[in-house]
């Protein structure tokens, strides 16, 4: 009996301790809410960053975090894509448009205490393109080749003057210079951390780096020496909460004060909650259905342009009906875009009629969209020689993107609209990396895809998505493989035209031709949405989806 009772006593003691622990843990302090003494903003993010080097990242999650720490020579105006001075006070452009001389701001310091000057500017650019720069090997600099390859050299004229020399005139370069890619980084910090500098960011921005706990949070503190004056927030903690419903619960609970990418299905709930406010704005994006026009080219010399030595060849997904303009127009007539936007984008988007967002330079609002008209669609199909329709395959993205929230449902809706006009569509889905690779190789007859703009310049939509130079099999940006030389010539000329009115007209002309040829069904421009608690004020959405927390206050 003695042993029995000692066993029992041990067991009971353990049980009591466990219960006690549970109770203490459950009730002591409960959930700690809003910080009081310090103004700390906790922002719920959908994902961790890849790196904290603004020049070596391409994903929005990473760029939105580095925005609080870094600045460039120029920046976007609040809420727009026009540019204004930042680390450069002013600049002059040579008459041929190939030399831009910047005067730099005096008295600015990096977070490590070193001076911002012309050498830092030269360093920040050169590490990305000069292969003899020792730091060049530490990054991929994905955006450099794509957006800045026209920059031939960056020269220091004196401590506070630099000259950027272009190999050819490029009307989009000033907007591109406001991108995160060309933020100015501290050369001293780069030397200190070498190849690990990506996890020790050091810029001139309003907040300075404190810590990065992988997949959990990134903390930045106010930079008291910021050249515009210290920010109103003392600290920002970017906390990773991947699941959108968990993010919403966290902000409802007050565990976080802001969140990104709310699920549109929860908008009613957010609007009904008096502690929350939804910020929404048309996004810089386009979601579309691309029909494979059938012909691409192999860019054998890899110059990103189609040369006479590179003949047009059939794409693997060549499908005869889509080479016919009437068929493509019929598909445009057959799909009820407003219903898709209303029901599947949950109203948080606008119907698209052109291939770039309406707020952008050169948007042609005079174009009349194809109305939803299945009768007309059937007529066109008959005229084109397909009175009984045909069978085809629609490739549907396996992931939702900012420009297409629910691709599977959108694909199914399109399937049923097309069935109405006797086009029998089979849906095909495959994982995202493969999807991108195969659609860029032109293996699809029809696919859903889209684009989020990088710099706010029309060239970044028109040339990248609709120029025939982009019909490169394997790396196509133009996944409709729409090859119209006239359009390409207009787009190339537009990039070399610095006069904005003339430039806008060139893009408008290109849109007219694209509309008639109907290689795409432009579905929607999705809004970008952020949620804040009502005690957070002053956040202004930017069309580029970058987050600028400097003006934000908390009560």
């Amino acid at each position, binding site marked *: 009996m003695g042993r029995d009772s000692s066993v029992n006593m041990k067991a009971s003691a353990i049980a009591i301790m466990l219960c006690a*622990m549970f109770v203490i843990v459950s009730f002591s302090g409960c959930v700690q809410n809003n910080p009081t003494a310090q103004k700390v903003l906790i922002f719920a993010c959908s994902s961790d960053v890849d790196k904290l080097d603004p020049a070596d990242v391409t994903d929005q999650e990473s760029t939105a975090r580095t925005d609080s720490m870094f600045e460039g020579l120029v920046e976007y105006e609040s809420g727009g894509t026009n540019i204004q001075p930042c680390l450069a006070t002013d600049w002059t452009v040579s008459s041929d448009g190939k030399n831009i001389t910047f005067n730099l701001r005096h008295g600015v310091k990096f977070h490590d205490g070193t001076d911002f000057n012309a050498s830092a500017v030269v360093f920040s650019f050169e590490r990305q393109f000069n292969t003899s720069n020792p730091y060049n090997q530490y990054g991929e600099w994905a955006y450099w080749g794509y957006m800045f390859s026209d920059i031939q050299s960056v020269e220091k004229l004196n401590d506070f003057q630099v000259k950027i020399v272009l190999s050819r005139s490029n009307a989009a370069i000033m907007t591109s210079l406001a991108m995160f890619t060309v933020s100015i980084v501290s050369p001293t910090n780069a030397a200190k951390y070498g190849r690990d500098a990506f996890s020790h960011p050091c810029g001139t921005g309003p907040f300075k780096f404190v810590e990065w706990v992988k997949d959990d949070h990134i903390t930045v503190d106010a930079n008291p020496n910021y050249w515009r004056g210290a920010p109103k927030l003392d600290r920002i903690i970017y906390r990773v909460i991947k699941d959108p419903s*968990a993010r919403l619960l966290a902000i409802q609970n007050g565990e976080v004060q802001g969140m990104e990418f709310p699920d549109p299905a929860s908008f009613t709930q957010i609007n009904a909650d008096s502690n929350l406010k939804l910020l929404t704005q048309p996004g810089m994006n386009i979601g579309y259905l691309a029909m494979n026009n059938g012909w691409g080219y192999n860019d054998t010399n890899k110059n990103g342009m189609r040369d006479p030595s590179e003949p047009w060849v059939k794409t693997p997904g060549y499908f005869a009906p889509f080479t016919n303009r009437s068929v493509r127009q019929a598909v445009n007539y057959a799909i009820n875009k407003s219903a898709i936007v209303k029901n599947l984008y949950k109203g948080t988007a606008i119907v698209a009629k052109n291939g770039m967002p309406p707020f952008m330079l050169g948007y042609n609002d005079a174009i009349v969209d194809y109305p939803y008209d299945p009768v007309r669609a059937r007529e066109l199909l008959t005229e084109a020689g397909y009175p009984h329709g045909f069978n085809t395959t629609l490739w549907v993205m396996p992931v939702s993107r900012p420009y297409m929230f629910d691709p599977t449902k959108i694909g199914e809706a399109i399937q049923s609209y097309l069935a109405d006009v006797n086009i029998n569509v089979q849906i095909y889905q495959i*994982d995202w*990396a493969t999807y991108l690779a195969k659609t860029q190789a032109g293996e699809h007859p029809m696919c859903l895809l889209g684009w989020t703009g990088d710099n706010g310049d029309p060239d970044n939509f028109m040339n990248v998505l609709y120029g025939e130079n982009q019909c490169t099999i394997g790396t196509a940006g133009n996944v409709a493989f729409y090859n119209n030389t006239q359009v390409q010539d207009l787009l190339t000329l537009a990039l070399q035209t610095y006069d904005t009115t003339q430039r806008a007209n060139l893009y408008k002309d290109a849109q007219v031709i694209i509309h008639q040829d109907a290689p795409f069904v432009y579905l929607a421009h999705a809004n970008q949405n952020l949620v804040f608690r009502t005690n957070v004020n002053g956040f202004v959405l930017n069309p580029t989806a970058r987050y600028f927390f400097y003006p934000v206050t908390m009560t």
Partner: protein
Amino acid sequence: MKWYIIKRLLQIIPVILGVTIIAFSLIHLAPGDPARTMLGQHATQQELDAIRAKYGLDKPLYEQYFIWLGNVLHGDLGRSILSHEQVTTEIAARFPNTIELAIAAMIFAVIIGVVAGIISATRQYSAADYTVMGIALFGISMPVFWLGIMLMMIFGVYLRWLPIGGRIDLLIPFHHITGFMVIDSIIALNGPALVSVLQHLILPAVALGTIPMAIIARTTRSSMLEVLRQDFIRTERAKGLSERRVIYKHAIRNALVPVVTVIGLNFGLLLSGAILTETVFSWPGVGRLVVDSVYSRDYPLVIGCILVFALVFVFVNLITDLLYTYIDPRIHYD
């Protein structure tokens, strides 16, 4: 015993070689590659080729494997292609989180599961038995994702007893020492941090531990029922031992052998398979890391994670096998 352990440790070598060769082949067979994930939708062929050459992705597969193996033998798992961070650093930053969660979940599962199993076995066909087994069936069939959200809604949003995600209240100062946050807060005698860390641990541990709890409860029940029917139990009862002593002293120990096997196998799964729980509860663990790295085709990171999982699985199984000798002295490995 010593020779047995040595033999088992040596067996790790072919297991690891096999696992890494299979993993290496499979991930490379999957279409898509890291170059495209890194450069995004606008990559040119030239840029893609440059990246592939930089990371040796243009070499034949067997050559890539041997280069990787050579580096591993020098203690170098390489760097993540996407984040440029050392693979060891990436894993080390998350592994303690996963282990802490798995241990907490297992403690929950074992305590509740074993107790429930015993209750049900000793009161077979009673209301208690049906209730416990009903709950176990419910637990085993419940999607972790849904359970997690429900727990968050009830204990986080309505009752406000517990936080709904993360490792710690980020407003509490905390310094990482070992990476195990419970241990770190004890070492630093940081009371508020310890309380916060434990609070954050409860809901994910319950969510993650529910399925193993149900499995353990069912296994304990059936194993216990079998033991209770054996002759030695009848003998003990005939000797006049109290029912309590028969059950707690003699029956449990015999019934535990299959339970320990289940615990061992499930612990391995908890370490590698906590992906859904980690996602719902924003838990920065290694399960999420491996899924993300597969999506981005980050080869060094994928293989690194799989290597670690394989090692953990082998070790947990070894420990399980050794535990048998403790629970049942009749088992010998010499």
